[in-house]
């Protein structure tokens, strides 16, 4: 029977399956960080259990760490980081701690090390684990009880999710990014459109994307409500993985390639749900509301509740506009910003930084705007510095920071003040996400850079700039 990419990966990981019970599936790689692991480690300790496969586990510090290079001053954050630093060696798990020179956002370092690879299962106590699906892995976020379950058993009890194919049809216009594609798609299907599904992304645009761009797309699968996102591996994938620190070498590499090339959806394979997103006329996207589905083209206006007939939808919209401090019907381009954040597991990789630097080069951050760039990992930071990107940013007036999750979720000192408005390359614009009372607009790195210079949103396609890096 014709199989989907998901079917292939799922079926080769089923350890046990009985009617009426969830399947027991094997987890090849478990990523850990400080926030969702302490209670799981404590659970193991209380039950007197071992961590089954430290060799399939890796931990980093990312959510809580200050990015100004200074020490952790928040006592709670320090306690949590100290707990990770004590728990990892106690259970044999390798830890890429702050200051090790190898740390970074958990979803950045997995691919960077070559641990993320086609056909494997990856979990992490973080919903953006969907990022790793860009390599044709089945990767999804779990809660702390499941973190403990994987620690103890290297397996998870899972009901088989449904499959969705999201086909990006058409030709991506110049100046349109992977971020615009996924924001546009979420705007189309809504924040619950993918619930219960694993999405496979297909189409010429996806095939033309680099791995960084594919990671941006898969990263935001969860913002459409999906369990995971996947992209079939191809030569782009293999070129990215070749010679990474953890990648197979020599004959093992050749064997891996033979196996990975089989990881495709067969012609005629059936998906539970099919979605087509036309990208021919896609315009740079800007979220205006309090979830990622509340998004509009930069050339459009903020919606007007008066135009909405459905009561519930109108109330949501009114609430969102009130929280965001926006006028119904105003032009997106007239929204003025206070802060710019370029970073997060969505858009903090080297290509993201090059793209933003290209727009910024030779310009200054607008008066009154505070802008910062936070690389996703130490290796990315060093790479960017070797290319001179840091200079382009700092000369323009951006802060150039240390690696971490930073302002994506405000668990560290990088937060918005009440009422402050940001252009952010992160993934969530929920109320208070970047700081209580803060107002977040999600955009691509190019759009964030352009907004930093203008002080308000602008259509980056109208600027002329040359690629750098």
């Amino acid at each position, binding site marked *: 029977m014709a199989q989907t990419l998901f079917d292939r990966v799922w079926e080769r990981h089923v*350890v046990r399956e009985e009617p009426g019970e969830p399947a027991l599936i094997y987890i090849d790689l478990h990523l850990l960080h400080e*926030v969702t692991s302490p209670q799981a480690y404590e659970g193991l300790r209380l039950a007197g259990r071992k961590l089954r496969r430290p060799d399939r586990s890796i931990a980093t510090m990312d*959510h809580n760490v200050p990015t100004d290079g200074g020490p952790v001053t928040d006592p709670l954050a320090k306690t949590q980081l100290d707990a990770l630093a004590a728990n990892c060696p106690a259970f044999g798990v390798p830890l890429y701690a702050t200051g090790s020179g190898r740390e970074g956002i958990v979803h950045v370092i997995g691919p960077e090390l070559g641990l993320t690879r086609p056909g494997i299962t990856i979990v992490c106590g*973080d919903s953006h684990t969907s990022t790793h699906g860009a390599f044709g892995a089945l990767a999804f976020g779990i809660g*702390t009880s499941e973190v403990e379950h994987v620690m103890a058993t290297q397996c998870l009890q899972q*009901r088989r999710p449904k499959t969705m194919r999201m086909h990006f049809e058409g030709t991506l216009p110049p100046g349109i990014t992977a971020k615009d594609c996924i924001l546009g798609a979420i705007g189309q299907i809504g924040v*619950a459109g993918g619930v219960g599904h694993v999405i496979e992304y297909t189409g010429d645009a996806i095939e033309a994307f680099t791995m960084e761009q594919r990671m941006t797309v898969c990263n935001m699968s969860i913002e459409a409500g999906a369990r995971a996102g996947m992209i079939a591996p191809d030569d782009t994938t293999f070129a990215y993985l070749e010679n990474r620190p953890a990648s197979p070498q020599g004959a093992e590499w050749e064997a*891996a390639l033979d196996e990975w090339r089989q990881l495709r959806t067969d012609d005629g394979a059936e998906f539970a749900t099919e979605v087509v997103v036309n990208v021919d006329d896609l315009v740079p996207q800007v979220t205006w509301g309090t979830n990622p589905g509340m998004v509009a083209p930069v050339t459009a206006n903020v919606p007007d509740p008066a135009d909405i007939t459905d009561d519930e939808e109108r109330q949501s919209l009114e609430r969102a506009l009130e929280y965001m401090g926006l006028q119904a019907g105003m032009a997106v381009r007239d929204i003025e910003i206070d802060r710019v954040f370029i970073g997060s597991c969505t858009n903090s990789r080297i290509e993201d930084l090059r793209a933003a630097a290209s727009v910024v080069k030779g310009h200054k951050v607008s008066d009154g705007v505070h802008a910062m760039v936070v690389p996703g990992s130490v290796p990315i930071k060093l790479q960017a510095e070797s290319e001179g990107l840091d200079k382009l940013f700092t000369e323009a007036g951006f802060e150039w920071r240390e690696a971490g999750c930073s302002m994506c979720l405000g668990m560290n000192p990088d937060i918005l003040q009440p009422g402050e408005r940001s252009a952010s390359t992160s993934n969530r614009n929920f*109320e*208070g996400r970047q700081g209580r009372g803060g107002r977040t607009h999600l955009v691509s790195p190019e759009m964030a850079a352009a907004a930093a210079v203008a002080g308000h949103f602008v259509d980056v396609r109208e600027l002329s700039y040359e690629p750098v890096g």
Partner: protein
Amino acid sequence: MEAFTRTTGRVAVIDRPDIDTDQVIPKQFLKRIERTGWGEFLFWDWRLDQDGNPRPDFELNNPAFADAKILMAGRNFGCGSSREHAPWAIQGYGFDVVIAPSFADIFRSNCMKVGLVPVELPEERVRALMDAVDTENGSEMTVDLEALTITGADGSTVEFEFDAFRRNCILNGLDDIALTLKHEAAITEYERANPSRIDTLALEH
């Protein structure tokens, strides 16, 4: 997980769709390393103003919803972050059950693991139940996981469906890890048959 069979108590209604876990438990509290004590932080930013005073416009501050054990909310409840701290906080505040037209996947899974019962009903059923709640004097309900029924104060009963495996786990307070470890031989056999090329320890230097 503690065993749960049924609960009878007041109902609280937050009639909003797409309530995300950043609202349920804001990020500033996620730095705690304890497993308990989360209830006081539930819906912090919505429940309390900047000075820590209750915001009268927020549903849970309605005296008719005080000490509620059953929470009703709009569709796609629990979307966003995977933080299990969200069901911990809902439970810690005193709720045993959440009723909604739909739940986000990770949130639902986390609820099952901690014994907070997520009851999914068709949107019109949830709407009817919400409309029947007396928002001035409060209303009681019984949610029975064994019988798979919701009974209103007026005696009217609505049936619901629930994953049979998870229902059994919650009714008996079973330890998921212990259940899986019964199949340790199968896990070991899987590992033998599927040797990995992944070794995070080999990266150590």
